[in-house]
C-alpha cells in the first residue's frame, strides 16, 4: 500500500526541533475501558429512549446529546489517539468540527427548528 509520499531527503523540523516527539499510544488496558464505557453509554442512551416519562421532559434531548458527545469525544481522544498525538492534528480536526457544528446549529435556527424568543 505505497501511498504517495514525500520524496524529500532531508530530515529536519521547520519549527526548529530536530526530531518529532515519540507518541505514546495507549494499549489494551485503555482500549478495553474505552470499549466498556462506550457500551455502557450506548446502553444508557437506548434505555432512556424507552422511558416514556423521561422522553417527555425537557431533559431528554440534552441528555442524549451529552451522552453522544461524550462517546464522540472518547473515541476521538483514545481510539483516534488525538489526546496523544501532535497538536496540529487536533487543530486540523477541532477547527473544522467546531465550524461545522456552528453551521448546523445556524441552519436549524434559520429553518425555525430552534428559536430565540425575546
Amino acid at each position, binding site marked *: 500500500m505505497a501511498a504517495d509520499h514525500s520524496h524529500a531527503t532531508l530530515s529536519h523540523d521547520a519549527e526548529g526541533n530536530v526530531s518529532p516527539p515519540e507518541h505514546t*499510544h495507549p494499549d489494551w488496558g485503555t*482500549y478495553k475501558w474505552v470499549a466498556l464505557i462506550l457500551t455502557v453509554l450506548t446502553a444508557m442512551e437506548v434505555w432512556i429512549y424507552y422511558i416514556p416519562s423521561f422522553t417527555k421532559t425537557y431533559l431528554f434531548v440534552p441528555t442524549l446529546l451529552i451522552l453522544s458527545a461524550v462517546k464522540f469525544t472518547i*473515541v476521538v481522544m483514545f481510539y*483516534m489517539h488525538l489526546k496523544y498525538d501532535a497538536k496540529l492534528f487536533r487543530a486540523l480536526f477541532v477547527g473544522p*468540527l467546531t465550524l461545522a457544528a456552528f453551521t448546523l446549529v445556524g441552519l436549524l435556527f434559520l429553518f425555525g427548528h430552534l428559536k430565540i424568543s425575546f
Partner: protein
Amino acid sequence: MGGEHPPTSTGLNNTKVAIWAFIGSECFFFASLISTYLIYRGRSPVGPFPHDAWTDPATGHVFKAILNIPVTSVSTFVLLMSSLAMVLAHSAVVRGDRRSSKIWLASTAILGATFLGFQAYEFTSFVHEGLTIHTNLFGSSFFILTGFHGAHVTAGVIWLLTLLFIDIKRGFSPDEAINVDVCALYWHFVDVVWIAIFTLVYLIK
C-alpha cells in the same frame, strides 16, 4: 513509506496530515447531510414517519413508526466493537505481532461487514413497509444520510480487506504501521459519525 520519522518539516507523516485534513473536510460533508435530515424532519406532508404511526388519508392504510431501535442498537454496538478491533489491529502491527494483526484486521472488516448487513436488512425492511427514497422528504433524507455513511463503511471495509491481503501476503513491519494507522483514523471517524447519527436520527424524537 517508512513509519519512523518521516522526513518532513513537522516530523509528521504526510499521509497522516492529509487524512486529518480529509476528516476535517468530512465534518462539513456530514454536517450538511445531517442538517438536511434535521431540517426536513417533520416537514413531510405524507408518511411514513420515523417515530410516529401514520394513516394514509387516501387509502386508510396505517404505517407504523418506521425506525427499529433495538436492531439499530445492536448494529451500533457492532460498529463500536469494530473500532475496538481496529485499535487492536493497529497496536498489533506496532508490536510486530503478525498473527494478531491479521486476526484483528479481519475482525474489523467482518464487524464492518456485519454493520452493513444490518443496514441492508434495515433498508429492505423499510422498503417493504413502504418507505423508499421517493416516498417523502423523510425517506430521501434518511436513506441518503445513512446511505452515505454506509458507503463510507463499505469503502472502509474494502480498504481493510486490502490491508489484510497485504498483511497475509507479506506482512506489515512495525515501521509500516502508519498504513494501518491512517486506515484506522478513517475507520474511527466513520464510527464517530455513526455515534452522531444514532443519536440525532434514531433516538431523538
